[in-house]
C-alpha cells in the first residue's frame, strides 16, 4: 500500500488522532494511537475486551482527557474540552451501557437532544404565548420524526427505561442525532440485539449516514457485521492500534488473527 504523506491525510480528515495515550494509574489504556477518519466514511473500531475502544470514545467526546497526544477536529485541537463543548462542535455519541434519561419519555429524551434548537425568547415562554407554543409544536414534530426514523414513534410517550434493550439502543441513536452531529460515535449499538435486529441496525446506520451527511465511528464486537458495514476498520489490542485498513485487508492481517485467535503452535 502506498503511504500518503501524514500531513496531507491529516488535512483532509474530519477527525485526526495523533499519538494519543491514556493512562489510568498503572494501566496504559491507550498507547500512542493514531488514526484519521475521513468525512462520510463509516469507520469501525474492533478489538478484544479491554482493548481501549470505549476509552478512545471517551477521549474524543470529552468525557476523559488524553495523557499525551492530540485530537484534532476539522480545524482545531479538541483535547481537554468539556463534553458539552465537544458536542456543540458536531460530535454526538451513544453509550455502551445505555445512559438514557430513564424516567423521561422517549420523546423527552429526544427533546433534550434538541436543546440547542429549542432556544426560545423568555417572555413568550413564561407567558405560554402562541409563538412559544408553535415553536414547541414544531420541536415536538422534529423529535417525532427522529423517533420515526429509528422506528420508535409508537412508544414516544413511554418512559425510556421501560423499552426493550434493542429499542433503547435505537433511542440513544435518535437522541444523539437530535444534537445535529457531523460525527456520530456509536458504542456497541448492536449489543443485546438478535441477528435480525442487527441486520436492520446496519441498514439504519447506512440510511442515517446518507440522510444526515454523517461520518460514523462505530465500536462493535460482532465482526461479520463490522466487515459488511464499515468502509475502514482499526483494530485495537491492549491499547495499541495493531491494524488499520479496509475490512478485507484487516481480515487477513496476521497481527489481527493472532490477537483474536492466539498464535498457532
Amino acid at each position, binding site marked *: 500500500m502506498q503511504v500518503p504523506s501524514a500531513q496531507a491525510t491529516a488535512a483532509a480528515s474530519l477527525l485526526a488522532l495523533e499519538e494519543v495515550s491514556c493512562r489510568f494509574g498503572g494501566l496504559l489504556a491507550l498507547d500512542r494511537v493514531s488514526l484519521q477518519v475521513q468525512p462520510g466514511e463509516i469507520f469501525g473500531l474492533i478489538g478484544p475486551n479491554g482493548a481501549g475502544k470505549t476509552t478512545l470514545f471517551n477521549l474524543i467526546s*470529552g468525557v476523559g482527557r488524553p495523557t499525551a497526544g492530540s485530537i484534532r477536529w476539522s480545524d482545531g485541537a479538541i483535547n481537554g474540552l468539556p*463534553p458539552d463543548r465537544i458536542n456543540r462542535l458536531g460530535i454526538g455519541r451513544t453509550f455502551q451501557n445505555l*445512559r438514557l434519561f430513564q424516567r423521561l419519555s422517549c420523546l423527552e429524551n429526544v427533546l433534550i437532544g434538541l436543546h440547542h434548537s429549542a432556544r426560545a425568547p423568555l417572555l413568550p415562554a413564561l407567558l405560554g404565548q402562541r409563538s412559544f407554543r408553535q415553536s414547541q409544536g414544531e420541536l415536538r414534530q422534529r423529535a417525532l420524526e427522529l423517533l420515526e426514523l429509528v422506528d420508535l414513534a409508537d412508544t414516544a410517550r413511554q418512559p425510556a427505561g421501560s423499552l426493550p434493550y434493542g429499542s433503547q439502543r435505537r433511542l440513544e441513536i435518535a437522541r444523539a442525532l437530535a*444534537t445535529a452531529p457531523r460525527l456520530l460515535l456509536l458504542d456497541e449499538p448492536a449489543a443485546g440485539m438478535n441477528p435480525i435486529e442487527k441486520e436492520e441496525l446496519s441498514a439504519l446506520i447506512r440510511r442515517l449516514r446518507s440522510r444526515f451527511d454523517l461520518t460514523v465511528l462505530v465500536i462493535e464486537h460482532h465482526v461479520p457485521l463490522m466487515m459488511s458495514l464499515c468502509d475502514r476498520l482499526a483494530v485495537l489490542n491492549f491499547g495499541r492500534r495493531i491494524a488499520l485498513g479496509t475490512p478485507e485487508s484487516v481480515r487477513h492481517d496476521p497481527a489481527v488473527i493472532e490477537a483474536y485467535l492466539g498464535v498457532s503452535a
Partner: protein
Amino acid sequence: MSDLSLLVQMGFGALLALSVYLPLRCGQLSLATPGFYVIGGYVAALLSTRWPALSGAGTGYPLTSLALELVVAALVAAAVALVLGRPVLQLRGIYLAIATIALVEILRVLNLNLAWSGGAVGIFGIPQPFAGPGGYALATWVLLALVCWLCARLEAMRLGRAMAAIRDDELAARCMGIPSADVKLTAFVISAVIAALTGVLAAHFLNTWNARQGGFDASITTLAFVVFGGSRIWLGPVLGGLVITALPELLRPVGDLRLILFGLVILLGPILFPQGLITPERLARLQQTLRRP
C-alpha cells in the same frame, strides 16, 4: 396564633420548599435556602429601619418601599448566588449539602457578631406595610402563586427539560450538549432569589430579624418539606411546605401528644412514600380517575 398568621407562615414554608426544590430538580442537594432567606430579611430590616426616606410621610410603611426592598433583596441574593455558585456547585451529592450548610452557618455567625446586623439582639421595630395579617397573607400567597407559575412553566421550557436531564444523568446530558454548569447555576440563583424574597416578607411580618432565623435547623426543616411532599414536581414541595408548617398548629388540640404525632408524620412519610407524597405518576393516575365518569 390567628388563622391568617398561620396562613402566612404556611406560605413562607411553601416558598422555602420551592427554593430547595429548584436545585434538587437538577439533582443538586443544596441546603443554602435559609442563608438566602436571612439575607433577604436583613436587606428588608436594614433598609426599612436605617433609611428614613423609605418610611414615607403617611402612617403605614409604603408598599412602594416594600417593592424596592424586594428588588434589592433579589439582586443581592442573585449576586451572592452567582459568585458562590460557580465554585460550590462543582461539589456533588452530599458534599454540596455539607458546603451549603457551612455557608448558612458562616452567615449566621457573621450576623451574630457584626455591628450593622444588630449582633445577637438583631434588628427591632421593622415597620409594617400591612395593617394586619390579612395583608401579609395576600402578599405571601401572591408571591407563592407567582413562583408556582414559574415552576409550572419550567416543565414546558427547555431549561426545565435540561434540569431533568441533569438530574437523571449529568454526564449523558453534557454529551447531548447541555452546559450543565450553567443550568445548575441558573437553578441555584433562582432558588436564592425565591428565598430572599420570602425573607423580605418574613422580616416585616415578624417585626424583628436576627441571625437565628436561619441556621442548621432551618436547613433541615426546609429539606423535610421537600422530602415529605416530593421533589419531582413543584406541587410536592408546595404541599410539603404547607402541611409541615401547619401540622404543629393543627395538632394543638391533642395537647402533649402533638409533638409525638408530628415526629411520626415526619418519620413515616418517607417510609411509606419514599418519593414524597406527590409524584408525576400519582398525579397522572389521579387525573385519570377524575376524568372517568
